[in-house]
């Protein structure tokens, strides 16, 4: 898959390496800014409140 992506990128080798790095950075930013915040609402790992009010 990655080999295919790399072969498909246009331009000389140096340019393709730059493009690949840009693609990686883009993917990480997308995950960090949109995917993970959305995902975290289903994550049970960060609850810090106390349950069950007995008032």
């Amino acid at each position: 898959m990655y080999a295919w992506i790399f072969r498909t990128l246009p331009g000389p080798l140096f340019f393709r390496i730059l493009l690949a790095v840009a693609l990686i950075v883009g993917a990480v930013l997308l995950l960090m800014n949109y995917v993970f915040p959305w995902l975290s609402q289903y994550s049970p790992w960060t609850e810090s409140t106390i349950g069950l009010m007995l008032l």
Partner: protein
Amino acid sequence: MGIALIHVAVREVRMTRSALRNRPKATAGQRILGGIGEILITLGIVLLLFVGWELWWTNIDANRAQSEVTSEFVQDLSVGDTEAEEEKDFGPAPITKIPDGETFGIFYIPRFGKDYAHPVTNGIGMDVLNSVGIGHYPETQSPGEKGNFAVAAHRQTHGQVFWDIDKFQNGDKIYLQTKKGFYTYEWRNTEIVYPSQGEVLLPVPNEPGMKPKSSTLTMTSCHPPFTTRMRIIAYSELESWRPADAGPPAEIADLVKKTMKK
């Protein structure tokens, strides 16, 4: 993913055109297996990234949100200079009314760091705890009121606002600044409870039906760090209070001045 790509790049560089031509063609099975391998590696890296996001990136986002909320909140505050009436007793503390879903105060906790100033907002939904920090349990009492003023914040991730909640020592003060002035709480004790033990939020913590005689501050967070197995609860008692125009308590005077300038 990054490492895999670099590997590929290095390989591409090494392979000359002729070598590429002479390479035996991978069978369909090999190519499918290789593809599955790449997907698995990718998933592993994404999972690691998620952990990185949770433990590190959320702090950056939350700290930015909290300093924004703080600087907006201090616009409405006016604070006098402390100098004159240093040790004066200003009588019983008034009650700070807590408007729905709004930020109503700033906590200063020297034990958590000399620059520790975090806003406190009504509500304990993820919208509060995951970005603006400390949340007030809406069913519990208000600052200055007889009973239990209970708040929650994350132990780790999202600004790790209560990271040091297990470090309180005798005599430690917790300061709360509201529009009315400064409430000084003194730490009393800390306990570890199960997440279901809602009794800690009662007007007199753990004493159902008791009429409160004092104002308690109850801080709740996760325990042990990096898990949600238990909850750590720190209790403090309202000790004194200063109206806003009398200025902040001496211990936090500089920090308050700095925060107000934000």
